[in-house]
């Protein structure tokens, strides 16, 4: 393994492209494309403004088989978790693996017991937070790291994700632009999640809950939804 295979493959590619022999300087077309990444065609549906953007996100998430709740402030998240547990007939218990803002919420008052640890196989419910969502497709965007361990999104039977309406974006291209603008290097994984896990591998019938969460519940913190 190693160097020999590398030079063999690169030489074959160069020869095929008619660049055999000496090293070739990187063309400006390549350099510019990589240094100033530009979006290709972005569908009109991915270019909406608020409040339409949130409405589209909700519609698309529902379409993808997720359930959605909207609350007025982050303090209301524990009650939304309690409501989800009651509706799904789950014990009012959640694993919150990340170190973020979710930890300090009034869980006890909402009657929800929580554990702060990595999610394990067999956990009924994990609660996490998304950095943004993509309205075009109703997709949650999760960045792996201490605030959001990646296994939280795949091991639990029920995955509940909190996202702020003000953070939602139109299209996935906006996500890349946002990460670059904030100077955020890509984490180990960026996970786009659209609805719960599913498979159509048995006779082309789409069924929910293949290997990942069987249910995906999105809680949107929506300032515009505040009571007058």
């Amino acid at each position: 393994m190693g160097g020999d295979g590398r030079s063999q493959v690169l030489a074959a590619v160069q020869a095929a492209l008619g660049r055999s022999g000496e090293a070739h300087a990187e063309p400006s077309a390549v350099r510019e494309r990589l240094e100033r990444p530009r979006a290709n065609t972005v569908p009109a549906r991915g270019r909406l403004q608020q409040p339409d953007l949130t409405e589209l996100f909700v519609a698309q998430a529902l379409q993808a088989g997720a359930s959605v709740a909207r609350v007025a402030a982050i303090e209301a998240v524990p009650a939304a978790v309690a409501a989800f547990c009651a509706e799904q007939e789950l014990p009012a218990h959640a694993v919150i693996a990340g170190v973020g803002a979710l930890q300090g919420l009034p869980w006890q008052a909402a009657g929800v017991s929580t554990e702060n640890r990595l999610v394990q196989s067999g956990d009924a419910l994990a609660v996490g937070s998304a950095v943004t969502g993509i309205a075009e497709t109703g997709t949650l965007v999760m960045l792996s790291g201490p605030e959001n361990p990646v296994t939280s999104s795949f091991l639990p039977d029920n995955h509940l994700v909190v996202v702020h309406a003000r953070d939602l974006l139109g299209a996935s291209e906006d996500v890349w632009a946002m990460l670059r603008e904030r100077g955020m290097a890509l984490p180990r994984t960026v996970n786009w999640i659209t609805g719960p896990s599913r498979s159509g591998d048995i006779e082309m019938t789409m069924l929910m809950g293949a290997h990942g969460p069987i249910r995906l519940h999105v809680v949107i913190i929506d300032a515009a939804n505040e009571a007058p």
Partner: protein
Amino acid sequence: MSLDTSSRTFPQQVRVARTDANLQQALGKLKFGLTAMRGAAVAKLPEFEQLRHDAAAIRDHTLNHLDHYLLRFEAAVKAHGGHVHFAPDAAAANAIILEICRSVDARKVTKGKSMVTEEIELNAHLEAHGITCLETDLGEYIVQLRKERPSHIVAPAIHVLKEQVAETFAAHHGAAPPGGRGEAAALMAEARSVIRRHFLEADVGITGANFAIAETGTTVIVTNEGNGDLTQSLPKVHIAVTGIEKIVPTLEDASTLIRLLSRSATGQEASVYNTFSTGPRRPEDPDGPEAFHVVLVDNGRSRMLGSVFQDMLRCIRCGACLNHCPVYGQVGGQAYGSVYPGPMGAVLTPSLAGIEAAGHLPNASTFCGACEAVCPVRIPLPKLMRHWREREFDAGLSPRGARFGLALWSFAARRPRLYRLVSRVGASVLALIGGRRGYLAKLPLGRGWTAWRDLPAPAGETFQAAYRRRRRTGAD
């Protein structure tokens, strides 16, 4: 080339497939499943044609600068603490992957769905060296238990009925779980619980990569089940195996291709999980793999570059050409004897395995053009199949009957009077035999056709004769 195919015996395999009642029942669902869902998804996206145009341009640009993008990708992976390995052929790829597995004393490997690892027959190689290899995609898992090959690049077990899945699970898992094995949902739940244990025990996770992004050194997997993510997140090592042509320049380019991929493959506006992996876990990360390797496989791809077959390297493996192909719809994937069936396989398999081994495949097309019409990256598949037919003919590899027929036809076609005479006589004779029924159930020398369907009888008058007559009488 080590791409082991049984494409040589395609005609025999077709005969088997056409008389396999289970297979025919399974294939019957294709039209109402993936094909209809794609149509609905495309109809909801007015920009679909513009996106196809963009996508083909992205792929062309990347392929034309592939050497530079490969170097950029490698540098970016390294910058994040990952490793890149280049494999000229299948044997080299298998050796690299085995070496990585051995370096951590791996005994069990879980796998996400990857066509390239099917192509290089990785599982057999690892198993031969004492490493257990478990497919975790539901369809791949079913096919692995049945010791079969995937019959579709997106839906590997599309040829298997749920009763057959139940039999397979009974043979491998023992007693039925409480939910029984009557319904697809129960079968899926059973597989979920069996495979979950393997995820937790695996030492190495191997996935494919739908795309490899040069800008950031990121590999991308697009799945619905979440098996790829459990495969790559739980073990201590993640190996992504993919072809050298899967490079795309930027994250934005990946966004465009993903939009097309999900819609073209399964008719979803977005697949459930699109995962962008960059390097191993970071020091502050509480989970994720400690090591990240990318294996870039050539295995015949560089030979297609710069050739008339370069356009085939645009392929993003959505499977739409399979779903819309009348030939695939009749015989399924296994008859092709290659991990790449259908129209894309008819072009790719001879490119990778040689025209001697796979010459039948580019002939298995009606040239109806449906494949090209639905291809998200606009690969001119019929044209490429035609190139292979010409090469097969030039190399003297076409069957003797076909060569004789073509020679006869070209003799007549160069003699217009003879051609008109023969076609006039032929058309009248066939019309006479067809009689009032208007079709022929049997035909001398034509059993290859009439064994499966009737031959519509000609009208009795040739096109040229009808044309002349209408000109004379002034009819439309």
